[in-house]
């Protein structure tokens, strides 16, 4: 359950909770949890120095590890992504809804608005994107942010061809000739097809702009984009810049004095590496840190109700999923997939495994998505008789299969056990195989398993095309179940070139109906996004990426 870092690839699809790794740390954690007893505020030695988030201007976050890299082009893992999100200026951002309880959430019903840019607009044919820049935006050293700053970013992403290139490729931007500098304050993209997701893609943390001057100073013949230097030092442009970085110990951020937007509430953010989850929890109880990041559901549940601690909880669009690989037996028969879907004890998973901080699914499509259509039938309430009947129809006797789970995915492991016993009740044997995170990732890519289970999968962009393109179409990169349905492929194709919102909703509804019928993936539960903090921390923003926004965090009354 606990542990040190999130090894799983967590890009578009964030593997929630955190993640563990080594058996040893697991045991540790269990034990850290056992130490639930009284924790007194440390007046002891540890308390004396600059500890505790006490300093009015300093926010202290306990994190599981260093960021894997500080180069946005390479940002893939959770810890790196969150750091990158707070260091690099994004082109756009979601508008924010105040939930009124100290939490905020991204308004997914609207297109993102300008952040580092002033605004963007699409031409009538949807193929030209005009981007107006802010006249007042500055880099941390006070130099103006101009069209060249943005062009440099796009070129760096395209040339490096690392993770961030996806943000542009999915829009159809593959070469610099499609990116035109109209003037110092205006840029144009020429897209091959109209794209409905320009705003959301430019919001991505790894699309954030880098400081061209800093990067250029460190470009060499061997390293034409200066990635070696940027990975270690960063070239920030966002709300925070780096004050000091001591790998393995701490990363200290300070507010960017020349940030164009609203000033961050905290002048400094200290990301202190506390690899053991149990210790992060204990330090939070005791008030040495303001926020415990990278926590598993289990650990968060144990923090619930602790004095001085508050668990922020916001409805999100991620799911815990059981994927059934569709193109090989036994799951090439839809009836068998449906039978499994009828056998899952949904309510019990939410109550007993998720501590009530989750919703039972209402479809393969997440119910908090702006595109979710409640009228689409989701028949799979827990019904073992129906399940047995479907198995009998399919002629499946003594069905046995193996589900793989990443050893870093504590939540999936916790979910697997009650599911295993529910399946036993309908005569199905589910073997659980834990595999190393990197191996799990490889097996997903190769579609080499029969079934997999993962926690906290959620799209970074709440859009039917994005979701279909990435996971449901037969050619989708993360269609880990090898699901193939011509109707779905047709819908995906039409979505790729349709910008009319009403038509898109119709297509999204058809897509949901097809998915609910086929259940290539069984949604197990839809967890809330949760963040344990000291009780005086407010301004906790949930966005679909599940990454904290430090800029908006504040201390109540502070």
């Amino acid at each position, binding site marked *: 359950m606990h542990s*040190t*870092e999130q*090894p799983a*690839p*967590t890009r*578009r*699809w964030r593997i929630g909770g955190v993640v563990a*790794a080594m058996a*040893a740390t697991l*045991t*540790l954690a269990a*034990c850290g949890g056992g*130490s639930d*007893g*009284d924790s007194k505020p*440390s007046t*002891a*030695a*540890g308390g004396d*120095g*600059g*500890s*505790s988030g006490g300093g009015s201007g*300093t926010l*202290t976050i306990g994190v599981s590890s*260093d960021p894997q890299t500080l180069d946005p082009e*390479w940002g*893939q893992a959770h810890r790196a992504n969150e750091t990158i999100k707070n260091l690099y200026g994004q082109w756009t951002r979601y508008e924010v809804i105040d939930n009124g309880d100290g939490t905020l959430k991204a308004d997914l019903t609207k297109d993102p608005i300008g952040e580092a840019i002033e605004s963007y607009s699409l031409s009538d044919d949807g193929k030209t994107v005009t981007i107006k820049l802010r006249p007042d935006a500055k880099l941390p050293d006070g130099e103006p942010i101009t069209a060249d700053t943005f062009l440099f970013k796009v070129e760096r992403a395209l040339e490096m061809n*690392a*993770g961030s*290139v996806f943000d542009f490729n999915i829009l159809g931007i593959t070469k610099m000739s499609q990116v035109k500098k109209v003037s110092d304050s205006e840029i144009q993209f020429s897209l091959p097809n109209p794209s409905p997701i320009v705003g959301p893609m430019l919001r991505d943390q790894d699309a954030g702009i880098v400081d061209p001057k800093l990067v250029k100073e460190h470009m060499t013949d061997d390293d034409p984009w200066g*990635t*070696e230097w940027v990975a*270690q030092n960063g070239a920030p442009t966002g709300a925070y810049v780096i004050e000091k970085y*001591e*790998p*393995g*110990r*701490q990363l200290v951020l300070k507010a960017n004095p020349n940030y164009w937007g609203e000033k961050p509430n905290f002048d*400094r953010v*200290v990301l*202190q*590496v*506390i*690899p*053991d989850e*149990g*210790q992060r929890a*204990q330090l939070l109880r*005791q008030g*040495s840190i303001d926020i415990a990041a990278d926590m598993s559901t289990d650990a968060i549940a144990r923090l619930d109700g602790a004095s001085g601690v508050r668990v922020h909880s916001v409805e999100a669009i991620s799911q815990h999923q059981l994927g059934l690989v569709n193109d090989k037996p036994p799951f090439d028969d839809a009836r068998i997939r449906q039978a499994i879907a009828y056998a899952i004890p949904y309510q019990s998973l939410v109550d007993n495994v998720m501590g009530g901080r989750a919703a039972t699914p209402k479809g393969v499509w997440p119910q908090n998505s702006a595109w979710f259509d409640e009228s689409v039938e989701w028949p799979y309430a827990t019904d073992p008789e129906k399940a047995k009947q479907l198995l009998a129809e399919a002629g499946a006797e003594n069905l046995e299969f193996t589900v793989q789970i990443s050893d870093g995915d504590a939540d999936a492991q916790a979910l697997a056990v009650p599911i295993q016993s529910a399946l036993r009740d309908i005569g199905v044997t589910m073997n659980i195989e834990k595999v*190393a*995170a*990197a*191996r799990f*990732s490889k097996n*997903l*890519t190769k579609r080499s398993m029969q079934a997999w289970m993962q926690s906290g999968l959620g799209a970074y962009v709440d859009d039917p095309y994005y979701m279909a393109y990435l996971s449901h179409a037969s050619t989708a*990169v*993360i269609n880990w179940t090898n699901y193939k349905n011509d109707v779905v492929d047709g819908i995906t194709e039409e979505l790729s070139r349709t910008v009319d919102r009403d038509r898109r909703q119709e297509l999204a509804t058809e897509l949901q109906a097809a998915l609910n019928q086929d259940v290539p993936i069984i949604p197990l539960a839809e967890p809330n996004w949760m963040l344990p903090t000291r009780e005086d921390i407010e301004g906790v923003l949930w966005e679909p990426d599940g990454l904290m926004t430090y800029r908006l965090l504040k201390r109540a009354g502070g």
Partner: protein
Amino acid sequence: MRRGFWLRYLGRRLLAAVLALFGVAVIVFVVTRLLGDPVELILGQRATPEQAAQLRAKLGYDDPLPQQFVRYIGDLVQGDLGVSNYTQRAVTDEIADRFPATLELALAGMFLGLLWTIPLGVLAAQRPGGWVDRVSRAIAEFGLAIPNFFFGLLLILLFAYVLGWAPAPVGELDIGATPPPRVTGMVVVDALLAGDLSTFSSALKYLALPAITLAVTSCPPILALTRTSMITALRGDYVRSARAFGLPQRTVRWYALKNSLVPVLTMSAMTFGFLVGNTVLVETVFSWPGVGLYSVQSMQRFDYAPVLGVVLLGSAIYILVYLLADLISMAIDPRVREGQT
């Protein structure tokens, strides 16, 4: 002793050391490659197969394994441990950054370990089966039986959270504190060198619990051996003679101690080797920014180069310490030397 003997002996041992390190390199190389490569982790899940293939080629992971191995050994011989796939830093630099923290912890643990085990072992040997012997054996068995990280957690719970005598386990210094100017990389030593007494005392407080954890859980074998060899020594003819001549008890004990030190020294060296290995979990519990924690993180990321680097470093330390202990015992005990010729 003749110089030729020493040179031949050293040469033989060093050759054996190199062979042992080579063996370790082979094993670690094979094991890490069996696990799979980190390309998918680095690129993330939405990467296309073409991108993965491109990166795999760039990192050389698509070459045949023997070729990768030859390249790796070739670099190794030149002192190049490779580059981390994530941080893009040279592994030698990353280890150099973190090893002092591990060394500081291991030395402190060893120091405390010798401090409690040798005196107790000597005392216990005075009256085998007496209460000192029984109590010390109970402590030693406890230390051996309890997993080190678990003992660390107990100490944290009791001394940091319940009693508040020790700082919470956030590493070597307070959260956000600025470390003293780096000279040795060992915070306690650097604080002293900088004349910064408040940082020095703060650093000592942070060092205390993890060092005690290592001292209690890693050093019991030294106690057991001190006791046994002291008992043997006290039964020796020369002790009986010394007693017969009416030498004072203290002098007699000193004779016996000197004679029983040789195996204790070897055992201490071995223990130190183990202790460096044991820091891995202890560092995790105490957020100690040493190489142990670094290797755990690197393993989770399938970052080969750091893993190989740390394992080789650990093996080299072990071999080196062992060699040193042998050399010292040969220097002080002619019988050991004779066995070698």
